[in-house]
């Protein structure tokens, strides 16, 4: 049943998303043209620079709007499917509540992943079109060798560990952010009779401020001591210590995700009251 739920959730999110994705690709092509204008060695008319500047602004804003739209699609699907009249169908399907929640999370992670890939593709398209003339045959290979080769030379086997840890951190952070917003929407839907979306924004603002404040306090008191401690670490221990720090981050976000998931599940299971 989870697969079926994911299929429908993903389909609903992607229904209009692809239009935004396609638009972002078109904008990236336009952005590429702008780069080519700016990078041109020839003397071009002033008006062309003006147009290119305007198009570049639109392209950058378009890319930002594309990410925002993905977020809007994901969260509006969550809200509508759970807390509007659609909830009468959603919560009477013969599936577990955990499956309903998991499908929303997985579909949103898939949409976020896909959006990230499209944005990377957009940037690559823009660079390729804009700097095509200047890119030499082995340009990308050299860049890759310079960047990745350097890290591997410096860290050896730890490069693989870093890569896995960074991937885990990205996944957990995305999951945490998604769950955080899901929880805010759920709290708002439980406490507010009307204007639930505005209430959700308010709840998010308050919760995010508290969370940020706690994190900043932590850094304020610990940054100095952690910094000094890192400075004193012998060179041969640098790699394992950095790996350990990232592992701590993974555990922290994993714990936060666990808490938010439990809270979200409890609210859906015990506090849900569709009007």
């Amino acid at each position: 049943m989870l697969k079926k739920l994911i299929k429908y959730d993903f389909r609903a999110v992607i229904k209009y998303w692809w239009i935004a994705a396609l638009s972002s690709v078109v904008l990236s092509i336009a952005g590429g043209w702008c780069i080519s204008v700016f990078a041109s060695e020839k003397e071009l008319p002033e008006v062309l620079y003006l147009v290119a500047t305007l198009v570049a602004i639109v392209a950058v804003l378009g890319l930002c709007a594309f990410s925002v739209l993905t977020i809007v699609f994901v969260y509006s699907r969550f809200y509508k499917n759970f807390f509007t009249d659609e909830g009468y169908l959603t919560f009477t399907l013969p599936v577990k509540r955990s499956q309903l929640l998991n499908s929303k999370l997985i579909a949103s992670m898939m949409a976020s992943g896909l959006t990230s890939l499209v944005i990377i593709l957009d940037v690559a398209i823009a660079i390729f079109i804009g700097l095509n003339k200047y890119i030499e045959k082995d340009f990308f290979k050299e860049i890759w060798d310079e960047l990745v080769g350097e890290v591997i030379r410096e860290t050896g086997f730890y490069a693989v560990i870093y890569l896995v840890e960074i991937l885990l951190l990205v996944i957990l952070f995305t999951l945490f952010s998604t769950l955080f917003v899901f929880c805010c929407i759920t709290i708002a839907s439980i406490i507010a009779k009307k204007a639930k979306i505005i209430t959700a924004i308010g709840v998010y603002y308050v919760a995010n401020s508290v969370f940020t404040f706690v994190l900043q306090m932590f850094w304020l008191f610990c940054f100095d001591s952690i910094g000094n401690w890192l400075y004193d670490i012998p060179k041969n221990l640098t790699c394992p210590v950095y790996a350990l720090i990232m592992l701590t981050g993974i555990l922290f976000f994993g714990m936060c995700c666990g808490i938010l998931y439990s809270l979200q599940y409890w609210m859906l299971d015990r506090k849900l009251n569709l009007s």
Partner: protein
Amino acid sequence: MNILECKNLTKSYKKNVPVLSDFNISIPAGRIVGLLGPNGCGKSTLMKLISGLLQADSGEISVGGNPVGENSKALISYLPERTYFNSSMKVNEIIEYFETFYADFDSQKAYRLLADLAIDPKANLKSLSKGTKEKVQLILVMSRNAKLYLLDEPIAGVDPAAREYILSTIVSNYNPDATIIITTHLITDVEQVLDDFVFLTFGGKIILSGNAEEARNENGKSLDELFKEVFRC
């Protein structure tokens, strides 16, 4: 065998104001039961509790021997007061959705009933009128071969012709081995289709229940007249 059993069911939305208090009921299979009572007496809350939309504060609910959950929901076909469609879907997409999630859904029956009403399966749900959406929802609910149909105010707010269509659709399309529970306060319209009735008052107290035919014969009154007598202000 009882298809539905509720034992000592209590539900409050606000502290110390129970909508249902220590509610008990057993409903056998193969009956059409009218859950009748004034507005706010807990009919819809009971439906929501049975269908798993709400959690009871205390007490037990068993549907076909299953506690409320994944298995009980597979046995229940629930028609809420509201239309629950994702309006960006088409009629045939929502039929596919039901087919995907309900093993007992008969899509051929659904398409046949849609054709009877000349509803285009390719129509967008958002383009349909409220009344047509309600009919589509009823068609979906009645196209399941469920064990228990929960119909919450199926004829409220519709014109007499639509009421007739709704009731005839319910009576001619339900699984005969199944039980139908209909909540309403429009008793005259549903009276003829009911096998049993339950009069519910505030706090979810049952003040009268039994066989509809026997009650009519014993009291020499219709259920509607009996209801008015019991709930006279």
